C-alpha cells in the first residue's frame, strides 16, 4: 500500500463511522470552458430536482469562449437552502490547471472525484479520493470521434449516479428533456453513464457519507433561470417592441423572447408577428427605439447590463421628463467599466435610481426569484404605462443566468393597464387638450398617441422645458408647475409597487434588510443566527421608491443590517437618504467580489456586528 492509499483508508474509515449525509451537500464540477460539460451539469441538477430535492445550479464561467477554467456549483439541501457555499463538500476535478486550487476550496474531509490522469496531490490526506479512469471508460463507450470530449463528461455523471445513488431514470429523463426527446442523443449519453456507473459499482467501494434520496416533490415547482422567466413575463405583459444589444448576462433574456414569441404571438390567421424584436447597433439605439415605440403607444422594452445602462442614461432622462413609458431590464454584473463581466453584483442600485443628469427619480422593481421575474416582467408594463415613466427591473447575473427552483409562474390576475390615453372621441368630448395638464389631480396627465385622428390630438414631445400644452417654455413658473406635478405623480407610484416581504421571528430586536438574489443566503443565515440565540426579522425590498412598510420596519428594530452585494452599501445609502432621522439605526454589511452571497459570511457578518454593538 502506498502512503496515500493508507491515508485514504484512514479517511475512509472516519467516513464510515459518520452517519450518512442525505440531501445536503455542495458539489463543484471544475472543467475547462467550452468542453461541453454544461449538458452533464444540467442533467445532474434536473435529476435532483425531479427527485424532489431542493437544488440550485450556478455556473461560474470566465469571460472567454474556450479554454479557461469554469466551475459549476450544485447545492442540494433538503431544507431548501440553496444559496452559494464557499467550501464544497464534493469536487469533480476535470481540469488539470486548477486541480490544486480547487482542492483548497474543498472542505475538510470532503470528497474528490478526479480524472485519473491528474496526479493525486499528497497534501490533502483528509480528502476521500475517487479516481476515474476517464480515458478507458470513453474508449469502451466508443462514441463518434467528434463527440468524444463531450461524452466524456457523462462519465462523471455515471460515477456520481452510482456513488450518490441518484435515480438513473431521472438522469435519463433529464437528458430526454435536454435533447428534446432525440433518442439517439439520449442513448449515446446514457451508454456512457451506465458504463461508468457499472464500473464504479465494481471498482469504487463507497467511502463517503453523501447520498441523495427522493423527497415528496411539489409538482408545481419549476427549474428555471431568471432571464427565461423575465422574457416570459414580458411576453405575458404584451411586449410589442423589444430592442436590445448583446451583453452578458442580459443577452439570454432577449434571446428567450426571440425563442418564444414566434410561437406565442403570431397572428393565428396570417402567421404574422404581433411584436418586433430588434437587435440594435448599440445600447443608445436600443433604448432610443424603445422610447420611440413607447411614445407611439407600444409596450416597449430593452434589456441590458451595466455598460449598456451607462450608455442609456441620456435617453432615460428624456423618457422620464417627457413621460414616455418604457421598461428596462438591468441584469447586473460587476462594474465599474467592464469589471468582471461574467460575475454577479448588485452595484447598479444608485445609478438606476437617478440615471441621467439633472433630477431624476426612477422606478425600480427588484425580483428575487424566477417567479418574481415573471411577475415583474408583466407588471412593469402596467406600471410604465399607468405612470408614463421608465420602469427599471433590477436583476443580476446569479438570478438571471443560473438554475433556480421556482414557484410556478402565476398567470396575470389583472387586465392590462394601458394608462390614460385619450381617443379621438375623448378629445371631442373634452374640447381641449394639454398634454401635461393634470385633470384628475393625481399628477398623471392623459396622453394622446401619434396617429389619433383628431385635430386636437397632436403635441410636441421634447426634453426641453415645456408648459402644460407641451409648448417650449423657459418660464420659471412653467418649470416649477411641471416638476411639482411630476413629483406628485411619482409619490403615487409608491403605493402601486410590489410590497416588501417581511418575515419575522419571536422577540426579534434585530432587523435585516436585503433585496434580490441574496434572499436564499439571508434566509439560511437567519436560521444559523437563531441557532445561536439571535432572533432576526427580515424585510426584503421589492421596489423603489420605498414603501412605508420599510420605514415602520426600521422604526420597530433597535438596529437594522442592510446586506447587499456592492462595495459602498448603495441600498443603505438610499434608505438613509429617504429617512435621515432613522439613519443611525441602519448598519451596512456588504460583500462584493463577484461570488454570490453565502450564508456563512452573512451569519458571521451579522454575528460579529452584533457582538460589537453590545460591547459598546
Amino acid at each position: 500500500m502506498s502512503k496515500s492509499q493508507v491515508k485514504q483508508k484512514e479517511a475512509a474509515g472516519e467516513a464510515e463511522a459518520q452517519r450518512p449525509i442525505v440531501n445536503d451537500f455542495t458539489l463543484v464540477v471544475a472543467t475547462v470552458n467550452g468542453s461541453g460539460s454544461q449538458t452533464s451539469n444540467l442533467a445532474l441538477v434536473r435529476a435532483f430536482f425531479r427527485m424532489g430535492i431542493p437544488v440550485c445550479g450556478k455556473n461560474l464561467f470566465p469571460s472567454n469562449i474556450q479554454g479557461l477554467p469554469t466551475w459549476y456549483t450544485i447545492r442540494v439541501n433538503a431544507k431548501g437552502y440553496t444559496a452559494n457555499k464557499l467550501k464544497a463538500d464534493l469536487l469533480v476535478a476535470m481540469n488539470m490547471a486548477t486541480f490544486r486550487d480547487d482542492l483548497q476550496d474543498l472542505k475538510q474531509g470532503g470528497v474528490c472525484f478526479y480524472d485519473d490522469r491528474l496526479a493525486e496531490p499528497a497534501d490533502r490526506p483528509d480528502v476521500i479520493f475517487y479516481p476515474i479512469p476517464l480515458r478507458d471508460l470513453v474508449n469502451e463507450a466508443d462514441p463518434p470521434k467528434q463527440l468524444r470530449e463531450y461524452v466524456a463528461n457523462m462519465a462523471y455523471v455515471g460515477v456520481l449516479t452510482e456513488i450518490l445513488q441518484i435515480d438513473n431514470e431521472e438522469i435519463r429523463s433529464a437528458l430526454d428533456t435536454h435533447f428534446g426527446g432525440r433518442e439517439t442523443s439520449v442513448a449515446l449519453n446514457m451508454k456512457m453513464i451506465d458504463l461508468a456507473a457499472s464500473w464504479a459499482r465494481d471498482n469504487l467501494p463507497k467511502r463517503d457519507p453523501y447520498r441523495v434520496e427522493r423527497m415528496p416533490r411539489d409538482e408545481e415547482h419549476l427549474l428555471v433561470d431568471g432571464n427565461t422567466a423575465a422574457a416570459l413575463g414580458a411576453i405575458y405583459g404584451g411586449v410589442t417592441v423589444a430592442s436590445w444589444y448583446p451583453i452578458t448576462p442580459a443577452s439570454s433574456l432577449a434571446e428567450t423572447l426571440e425563442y418564444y414569441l414566434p410561437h406565442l404571438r403570431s397572428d393565428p390567421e396570417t402567421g404574422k408577428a404581433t411584436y418586433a424584436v430588434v437587435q440594435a447597433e448599440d445600447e443608445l439605439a436600443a433604448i432610443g427605439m424603445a422610447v420611440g415605440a413607447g411614445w407611439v403607444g407600444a409596450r416597449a422594452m430593452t434589456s441590458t447590463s451595466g455598460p449598456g445602462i451607462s450608455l442609456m442614461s441620456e435617453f432615460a432622462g428624456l423618457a422620464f421628463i417627457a413621460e414616455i413609458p418604457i421598461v428596462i431590464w438591468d441584469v447586473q454584473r460587476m462594474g465599474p467599466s467592464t469589471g468582471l463581466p461574467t460575475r454577479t453584483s448588485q452595484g447598479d442600485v444608485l445609478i438606476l435610481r437617478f440615471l441621467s443628469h439633472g433630477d431624476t427619480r426612477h422606478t425600480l422593481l427588484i425580483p428575487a426569484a424566477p417567479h418574481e421575474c415573471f411577475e415583474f416582467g408583466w407588471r412593469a408594463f402596467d406600471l410604465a404605462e399607468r405612470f408614463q415613466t421608465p420602469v427599471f427591473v433590477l436583476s443580476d447575473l446569479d438570478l438571471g443566468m443560473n438554475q433556480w427552483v421556482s414557484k410556478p409562474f402565476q398567470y396575470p390576475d389583472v387586465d392590462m393597464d394601458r394608462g390614460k390615453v385619450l381617443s379621438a372621441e375623448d378629445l371631442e368630448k373634452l374640447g381641449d387638450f394639454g398634454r401635461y395638464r393634470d385633470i384628475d389631480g393625481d399628477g398623471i396627465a392623459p396622453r394622446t398617441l401619434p396617429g389619433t385622428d383628431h385635430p386636437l390630438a397632436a403635441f410636441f414631445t421634447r426634453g426641453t422645458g415645456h408648459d402644460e400644452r407641451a409648448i417650449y417654455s423657459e418660464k420659471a413658473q412653467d418649470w416649477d408647475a411641471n416638476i411639482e406635478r411630476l413629483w406628485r405623480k411619482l409619490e403615487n407610484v409608491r403605493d402601486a409597487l410590489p410590497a416588501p416581504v417581511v418575515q419575522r421571528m419571536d422577540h426579534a430586536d434585530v432587523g435585516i434588510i436585503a433585496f434580490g438574489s441574496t434572499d436564499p443566503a439571508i434566509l439560511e443565515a437567519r436560521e444559523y443566527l437563531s441557532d445561536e440565540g439571535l432572533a432576526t426579522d427580515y424585510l426584503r425590498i421589492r421596489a423603489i421608491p420605498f414603501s412605508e412598510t420599510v420605514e415602520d420596519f426600521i422604526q420597530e428594530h433597535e438596529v437594522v443590517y442592510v446586506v447587499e452585494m456592492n462595495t459602498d452599501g448603495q441600498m443603505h445609502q438610499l434608505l438613509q437618504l429617504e429617512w435621515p432621522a432613522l439613519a443611525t439605526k441602519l448598519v451596512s454589511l456588504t460583500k462584493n467580489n463577484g461570488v454570490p452571497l453565502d450564508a456563512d459570511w452573512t451569519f458571521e457578518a451579522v454575528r460579529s456586528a452584533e457582538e460589537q454593538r453590545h460591547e459598546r
Partner: protein
Amino acid sequence: MAACYELSIQPENVIKISGIGCSSKSPTYFMGRSHGFNAVHGRMPSIATGASIANRSLKTIGVSGDGDTASIGIGQFIHLMRRNVPMVYIIENNGVYGLTKGQFSATADQGQKLKKMGVNPFMPIDLCMEALIANCGFVARSFAGDPKQVKELLKSALNFQGTAVLDIISPCVTFNNRDESTKSYSWGIEHEYPLHDVTWVPSYDEIEMEIEPGEIVEVELHNKSRLVLKKLEHNHDTSDRLAAMQLLEETCCAEILATGLIYLNQNQETFQSVENLVDKPLARLQQDALRPSKEALEEIMADFR
C-alpha cells in the same frame, strides 16, 4: 408644409421627429396637427425606428442637421438606412454647428475659415455618399435656394417606401454664409447644377408636358404615382449606384453642386416587411392579441418540471 398639403397627406398621420440643433427645431414650425418629437442629439434615427415599427401606418418625417447626422449621429444614420426604415430623412446641411454658435461640423469644407475656429484641416463627410454606401434606396441633394426642386424631391421622397435621404444645402446666415463656403447662399446659386428637372405626378394625373421623345425618364413608384425626370445637359442614370458615386466624386472635384435625384432603388425590402408584422399597428393591439393563453403558459411550464 406645402408638399404634404399637395399630397393630401393627413397631418394626424404624420410624425415629425428630429434630433437637437437649429435644424432640428424646424419640425415645430410646420404641420401643427402632427405629433412631433424633438429627441436627443444625433439619435433621431432610433426614435424613428421604434416609432415606425410600433405604428406602421404613420408617415415619418425626420429633420436633422449636419452635426446631428454627420457627427454625433452618423452611426444611427447608417443603421437606419441599413434597416430601410420607411421615412423621409431631411438634413439641413449648413457645414456648421448653428445652435452652439459656430463650430465646424463634419461636413465643413477642408481649408474653410470660421471666425471662431480658424481653418478646418479635415476632409468633409459627404452624406449622400454615405447614404449610397449604406444602400439607401432614395438619395437626393438639393439647395435651399431652389425651393421648387426641394418641393418636388420632397413629394417624391414622401411617396417612396423605404428610407429616403434628402440632403439640403441650407446656409446658416449667422455663422457660415461667406461666399467661399460651399454651404453659402451665393456659392449655391452660382454652382448649382441640377441633374434634371424633377416633377412628381400623382397616379391620377396625366403628364402634361411638351417634350421630345427620349428627353424624359419616368419612374413609377410603388403607390403608382410617378416621378418624371426631364433631361438637362447631363445624362444621369438614377438606377446606377456606381454612376451615382462617380457623379458625387466628379462634381465635388469640379466644385459643382449637383442637385436632384442621385439614386433610386425600389427593390429593397422595408424594415416592416422584414419583420413580417401584422397589418394593424403594433401600438394599437390590445390585450386579446397581446396576452397568450393560460394553457400556453401551462405547456411552457411543463418543460421546466
